């Protein structure tokens, strides 16, 4: 008889990397403009990061999704924005998101507040012209801390946490199977270093924490073990 440990499990490295590139596309960017821009303010934005996967023999790392975009302070409370997803475009998929970030509550000094960001994610591939539309709704609570002013320049730090929700409009998936997850809900926590014209954001999401990450073709890393995934992101805004 042979011992179980002699049996070498298959290690499908390339396939894991491939599926990893697809994985959790709902998690391809951090929340945009947790604090809406000032009225008539313009800003360009970029983000980098995605779900953390194990790439066997290489590393455990976030998938490098990248986006570039633009935002505008439409009113004192509302910022409109749009972003182009560059990583998707490398694979022949034109992906944009358009949305608004709206302040629904803030204290008098604007050091604490709540914002919501309804958004539409649109994708179409150049090969078969198959289009997809995913509504998204993010909601975040933010709070400033340890703010300073030096040489006339303010240095603002704020923490935020909230939920990012994607909505699947298709009821049926591949091979006539019922789509199991119509709402993909991901709690998130982030930190923004606002340095005047520039600000930098680090964000972590727990992606779909109620969904098992076992028995699928990608090795997601999650702080919850066999459920969900972990997403890590870096974002930068430059106010014009």
């Amino acid at each position, binding site marked *: 008889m042979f011992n179980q440990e002699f049996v070498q*499990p298959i290690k499908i490295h390339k396939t894991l990397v491939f599926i990893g590139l697809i994985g959790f596309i709902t998690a391809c960017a951090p929340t945009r403009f947790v604090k809406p821009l000032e009225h008539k303010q313009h800003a360009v934005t970029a983000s980098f990061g995605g779900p953390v996967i194990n790439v066997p023999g290489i590393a455990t790392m976030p998938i490098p999704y990248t986006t570039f975009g633009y935002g505008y302070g439409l009113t004192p409370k509302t910022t409109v924005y749009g972003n182009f997803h560059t990583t998707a475009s490398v694979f022949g998929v034109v992906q944009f998101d358009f949305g608004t970030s709206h302040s629904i509550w803030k204290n008098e000094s604007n050091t604490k507040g709540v914002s919501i960001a309804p958004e539409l994610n649109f994708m179409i591939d150049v090969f078969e012209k198959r289009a997809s539309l995913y509504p998204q709704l993010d909601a975040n609570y933010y709070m400033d801390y340890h703010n300073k002013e030096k040489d006339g320049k303010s240095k603002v730090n704020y923490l935020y946490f909230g939920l990012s929700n994607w909505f699947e409009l298709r009821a049926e998936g591949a091979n006539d199977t019922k789509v199991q997850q119509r709402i993909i809900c991901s709690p998130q926590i982030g930190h923004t270093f606002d340095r005047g014209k520039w600000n930098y954001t680090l964000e972590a999401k727990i992606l779909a924490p109620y969904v098992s990450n076992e028995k699928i073709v990608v090795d997601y890393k999650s702080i919850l073990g066999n459920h969900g995934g972990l997403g890590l992101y870096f974002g930068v805004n430059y106010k014009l």
Partner: protein
Amino acid sequence: MKMKKILFIGISLVLLIASCRKRLDDFLFNNVKADQYLLDDYTGRITLEVGSEYDVADSMIHLINIPIQSEGQNLNISALYTGELSRIAVDTVILYCHGTADNIDFYWPRQKLYSNMGGKSRFGVLMVDYPGYGMSEGDPTEQNMYDAVNGALQWLKDNGLTSDRLVIFGFSLGSAPTCEVAGNPTEFALAPSKMILEAPFASAEKMIQDASILALPSSYFVNVKIDNAEEIKKVNIPLLWIHGEADSFLAIDKHGEIVYNNYQGPSKTAVRVPGGDHEDTPFIMGYSNYLTTLLNFIEQ
């Protein structure tokens, strides 16, 4: 002025990146090229450990070169036949379509098992390396994988095999050419009389949707159109399906069950293996039980 500059740079960047149009098809194939096959002397990772009772005599091992034309290329495909060549014209032969990993050396222990099913070298077994695998020329694509399998079928036909004595067996990725041949028999050199699927996947699109959670079209990532769950609907020969209930790569309920349930042919047999993962189902069943299951299906 600054806005115009940013806009110009942004649009240029978008156009540049969008022009790349990289596809991920080649990531589906985990092929390893080789100058030669080492078989029992191979020291790399292998699919299963099997004992010396499953050894195959050197005289029964035949390395075959099969020239094919595919997608405008002339390719030499390597295949390994175990058994007496003279019996191809008179006995049942198993065409084994291996999975995505490495090449023939990785799957050699499986060929040894099948060669010893029902007695020493009872059945002839042909395993083909798809283009880009092992000693086969080219780089793998969906179409040239099918063309390589058709080349193997043509070689068997040229050596006297008839359709009524052909059993086609697909494991994991190999379920794609197996379903393609069984579902569209007139397009291939031979039409199999029975098919075996072990740990098949439903479709490329299903794999993508498993990973992304969303119902995304597969065309966002790959050109391949592999859809075993559709092809199996056209199959009109008996089916044996084996799948580990603990398959951590292609979950039995999301892949194997769909293929099995879509089968509408004359008879089907399901073997769900408790505790079986993607690769180790023969071990979990016990090699003897596993081979008896296959043998009963082939001989019934």
